[in-house]
């Protein structure tokens, strides 16, 4: 009788051992160092650092702008995915490939480019200046940069779901008398929610930690346009390692909490929704 643990294919110990070793050395042990370092602070020191007015202002901007940018991308991303899947138009394949541009363009390049576009003398900033709208070096600039880097996440999670969508479901809705808008709102959209939620959380988490594309356009004024990752770097440059680490812990806990919440929501919605 063969043992239940008998494995036909070789290399289990080698590959799993190597995977765990490399994962520990590069990711797990260095990340654990952040939490160890924070434990050298007393609770009061930690609390004072993470609730300093300047830190609170940076969370407000980082979390607020990331949330709004991800929300904007939900609408624009679903629209782009819909247009790419459902309609034919000239140059569609190139447009489809271009959607990944924010992934392929290094963040520093995106940062200086968006700054020059939206600065008062820039191509877009010059048009907005007479209207009294300032983008570069304001919180609006942070929002623009975060929208730019978050766009592909929503499009690329929604697109495959739309592609696999069974047209018969829409035909059934139409034959039962639903208008096109009703069909979209009541039949198509609910099917997209899990993908939209995943895309939203990915874009949100990415925007929270984003540095390169934001620092140039933000202007980096403490209390006004300073994002949390920049505040961490400022503290590092002042050799305040403990302070930088405390802020890093807040950010890490924040982004893990977002991912966990979304995973739980998805798990719940997949349990409550009858499979089609």
């Amino acid at each position, binding site marked *: 009788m063969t043992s239940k643990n008998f*494995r*036909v294919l*070789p*290399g289990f110990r080698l590959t799993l051992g*190597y*995977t765990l070793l*490399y*994962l520990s050395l*590069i*990711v797990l042990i*260095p990340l654990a*160092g*952040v939490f160890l370092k924070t434990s050298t602070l007393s609770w009061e020191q930690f609390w004072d650092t993470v609730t300093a007015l300047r830190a609170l202002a940076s969370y407000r901007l980082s979390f607020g702008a990331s949330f709004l940018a991800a929300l904007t991308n939900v609408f*624009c991303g679903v*629209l782009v995915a*819909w*247009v*790419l899947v459902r*309609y034919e138009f000239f140059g569609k394949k190139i447009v489809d*490939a*271009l959607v*990944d*541009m924010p*992934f*392929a*363009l*290094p*963040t*520093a*390049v*995106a*940062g*200086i*480019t*968006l700054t*020059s*576009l939206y600065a008062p003398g820039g191509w877009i900033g010059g048009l907005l200046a007479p209207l009294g709208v300032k983008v570069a070096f304001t919180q609006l600039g942070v929002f623009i940069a975060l*929208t*730019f880097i978050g*766009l592909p996440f929503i499009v690329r999670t929604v697109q495959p779901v739309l592609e696999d969508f069974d*047209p018969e479901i829409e*035909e059934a809705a139409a*034959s039962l008398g639903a208008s*096109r808008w009703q*069909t979209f709102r009541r039949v198509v959209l609910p099917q997209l929610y899990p993908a939209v939620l995943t895309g939203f959380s990915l874009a949100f*988490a*990415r925007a929270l*930690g984003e*540095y*390169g594309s934001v620092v*140039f356009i933000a202007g980096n004024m403490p209390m006004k346009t300073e994002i949390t*990752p920049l505040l*961490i770097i400022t503290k590092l440059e002042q050799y305040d*390692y403990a302070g930088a*680490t405390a802020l*890093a812990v807040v*950010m890490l806990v924040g*982004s*893990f909490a977002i*991912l966990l919440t979304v995973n739980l929501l998805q798990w719940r919605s997949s349990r409550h929704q009858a499979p089609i």
Partner: protein
Amino acid sequence: MGETTTFFRAAARRDLRRRATAESHWVRRVLVAVALLFLGIFLVLPLIAVFAEGLHKGLGYYLNTFRDPRTLSAITLTFIVAGISVPLNCVFGVAAAWAIAKFDYRGKNILITLIDLPFSVSPVIAGLIYVLLFGAPGPFWNWLSDHDIKIIFAVPGIVLATTFVTFPFVARELIPLMEAQGRTEEEAARVLGASGWQTFWRVTLPNIKWGLLYGVILCNARAMGEFGAVSVVSGHISGGVGTLGTMTIPLRIEVLYNEYNTTGAFALASLLAFLGLVTLALKTWIERKKTAALHAAEMDLRA
């Protein structure tokens, strides 16, 4: 006469069907126009702006940027760093995908989540963790300085930080691919007497080559363009003739930009933007190959 009536009826039915599951012409046009306008302003305009700003002062000035030894050493360093980080993560990705896709055991989902972890960590924090570990306040600092080994504010730190931020790219591409392909082909090879390595080189690798290449290309693009993590560990030491320094291309762009040499910054940025466009083109090409390969595998399974 009867024939024409049938034709019109069929056309009318087609029209009804179209209206039932598709939007009217003007709705389509408006939606396409809005989407293209949005993408044009957000994606195409920045791309044009990079090259326009770089060539702003003429081709001579543009090319001059690339004659500066500090810029040249930044380009060299970027290629060295990507040349180390990408192969490291590539070997890891293959090993991890093999360990996850070819065997059954508990805790696999936790392992996959942990492999994805670097994607949800800010690049700034990715740099910070190595400063805490190997920098002045860290546990290894005394030993490292006794032996005159520099990690932080030196090339090894840049390699480590880059490896961290590009860690999941190859693995997360290969794991679902190898899981979808199953184990039967490898098992057949083993039964027919192939050794483990023969099985890997002759059966597994040809099956995963497009997925592997895809992961490597994305990994490389990120490795060459990483800014935040590298910025924290770099120390910003300019290289020159004969010295490498600790400036990668993105850091050099920042320095040029902050020195108000905007045209120079954009000239160098256009090099990275060009690499980005090449990445997109390769990515699109491989995606087509990959779906074709996956499709063929599915047909094989059905047969």
